[in-house]
């Protein structure tokens, strides 16, 4: 028998859990009182959220003039943050939809949290363009509804309108995907809850789910459909985000490489953020048996793959500029690497291309603090990537007389910090009130990598 067992793949879930144990391990931390560490983390995040709320209230009441924009650089910090947050969200859909279609069963341990991250990141992203409209109370004008101005319709040829449709569809579909995946777990919570309010609340949202196989069969079909729709959707979303730039004629933006380059960058930064959150969550919620070193190892491999794609795109951009023979195009790229924002450019290259190379080593992938540090650096690098693309192209365009420098104001920085506050506040609340691990899915992979005979009664 020994040889047969060796030939099997290692199990996905460690600790030889029974089905009931999985329910208990995931649900018990939610039913206990929150730890002091959780409270501290929530208070810090919430303080940042309040800072952001104050900054937003101020800039809405005073106007967008509180930002560091000028006539040359017409959008900078807000669009950087928007693209950054949307990108973060994409890894959640990669894990929940694309890895599902590829039958990567290891995703079951991380997909719930990754999808939560997607939804929260899209919420953070949505703040920035809404404020940038200048009159956010008219944000609904982006929706093509019959109005008393004509009806004057929105311009369906504009990438900004495409963006509005892409982001709102993406948010809706991600939220539904998350909820459908959660349905059986909400029923589990309902049926084991002792507190009345918890049973009521879980009863309200679990929609009377009772584990009937007639429902399970359709559930599986709907889940597959949503995954199939979510996969092209996520690619379309960041493609459209990149078109916000690529359809402009500005050197450094007007490039056909943008859609794949942006999608790969989004998954790269998002995967780093998933790893960051997972490393925190597995420690905080004691889920080391579920989110194992093997999960971290696999996500690291996705990080290094996408890092390679992003690095290739950086190189290709330079080659295209050289080969184009356009002096404007060539200038933009020399200016990025050697101009006034050279430090930002090299932070980006260093964090996105050089630092992730460490992940080639198994020892690094198995050492959690190193992975954590690399992931933070990747996110710093990816934030700088968007900043560099946007600001360098705008601040030095065709006519040197137009050139002007851009620097963010305190209000803009406070808004960015506030978006991080919102993100982590929502994530911490999620850890408390919703099972962080997809219980029903993990139960289905318990047998993975175990000899069939062991589970029988003989």
């Amino acid at each position, binding site marked *: 028998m020994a040889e047969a067992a060796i030939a099997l793949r290692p199990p996905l879930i460690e600790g030889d859990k*029974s*089905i*009931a144990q999985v*329910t208990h391990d995931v649900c018990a931390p939610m039913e206990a009182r929150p730890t002091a560490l959780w409270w501290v983390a929530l208070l810090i995040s919430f303080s940042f959220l309040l800072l952001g709320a104050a900054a937003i209230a101020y800039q809405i009441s005073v106007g967008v003039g509180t930002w560091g924009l000028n006539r040359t650089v017409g959008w900078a910090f807000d669009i950087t943050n928007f693209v950054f947050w949307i990108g973060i969200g994409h890894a959640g859909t990669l894990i929940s939809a694309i890895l599902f279609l590829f039958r990567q069963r290891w995703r079951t341990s991380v997909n719930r949290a990754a999808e939560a991250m997607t939804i929260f990141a899209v919420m953070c992203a949505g703040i920035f363009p809404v404020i940038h409209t200048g009159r956010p109370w008219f944000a609904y004008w982006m929706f*093509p509804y019959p109005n008393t101005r004509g*009806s004057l*319709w*929105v*311009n*369906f*040829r*504009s*990438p900004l309108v*495409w963006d509005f*449709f*892409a982001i709102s*569809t993406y948010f*809706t*579909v991600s939220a*539904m995907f998350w909820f*459908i995946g959660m*349905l*059986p777990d909400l*029923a*589990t919570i309902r*049926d084991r809850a002792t507190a009345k309010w918890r049973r009521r609340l879980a*009863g309200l*949202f*679990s*929609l*009377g*789910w*009772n*584990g*009937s*196989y*007639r*429902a*399970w*069969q*359709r*559930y599986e*079909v*709907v889940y597959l*459909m*949503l995954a199939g*729709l*979510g996969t*092209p*959707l996520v690619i*379309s979303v960041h493609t*459209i985000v990149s*078109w916000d730039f690529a359809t402009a004629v500005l050197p450094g933006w007007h490039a056909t490489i943008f859609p794949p380059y942006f999608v790969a960058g989004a998954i790269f930064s998002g995967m780093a953020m998933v790893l960051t959150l997972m490393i925190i969550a597995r420690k905080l919620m004691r889920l080391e048996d579920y989110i194992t070193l093997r999960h971290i190892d696999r996500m690291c491999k996705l990080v290094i793959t996408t890092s390679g794609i992003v690095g290739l795109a950086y190189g290709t951009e330079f080659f295209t500029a050289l080969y184009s023979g356009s002096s404007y195009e060539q200038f933009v790229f020399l200016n990025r690497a050697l101009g006034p924002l050279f430090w930002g450019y090299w932070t980006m290259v260093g964090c996105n291309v050089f630092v992730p190379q460490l992940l080639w080593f198994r020892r690094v992938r198995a050492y959690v603090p190193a992975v954590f540090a690399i992931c933070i650096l990747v996110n710093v690098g990816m934030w700088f990537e968007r900043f560099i693309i946007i600001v360098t192209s705008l601040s030095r365009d065709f006519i040197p007389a137009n050139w002007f420098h851009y620097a963010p104001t305190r209000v803009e920085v406070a808004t960015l910090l506030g978006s991080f506050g919102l993100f982590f506040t929502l994530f911490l609340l999620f850890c408390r009130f919703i099972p962080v691990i997809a219980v*029903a*899915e993990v*139960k*289905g992979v318990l*047998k993975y990598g175990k000899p069939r005979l062991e*589970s029988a*009664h003989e």
Partner: protein
Amino acid sequence: MSKRLLVGVFESEDDTLAAIRASRQRGFKVVDVYAPYAVHGVEEAMGLAPSRLPWVVFALGVLGGGLKVWFEFWTTAVDWPVNVGGKPFNSLPAFVPVTFEVMVLFAAVGAVLSFFFVCRLYPAKRAVLPVAGVTDNRFAVVLEETDSTFDPAEVGKMFEKLHAVQVDEQITGEVA
């Protein structure tokens, strides 16, 4: 109309699958199977017909995409044409991204709503469980006692041989 049901409760997916197969082999009517997670192979064992939801999703996707192309054409080329940078009023290629998004939106929302509809799932619905624990660690196979040839004691013994931890007889008009 009330029904007499026999519920066999199991602890593992293999036993559940064996029980479903044994019951169907002997000609019993498997009303439903309850499981804490989607067990691979149950639908084949139960002989459930494949779900028709994909067709609903496909139809709604086509409908959403079609409506959107028409709407974009009507707003930009018919109702109030606006000259934007000299582009043609009917700029079909520029309509592609939004059409795609709306198609996905229709298909996805439609998939979820029709799933809720066919499974009769709605907020605050009272869940009817055959036995406690089917959302935790128990599997239940529910048979209908269709006629007098059905011997509950004998079928119960068959379940026990297949490692059932509990066999219940229920009279109900609700389950199934």
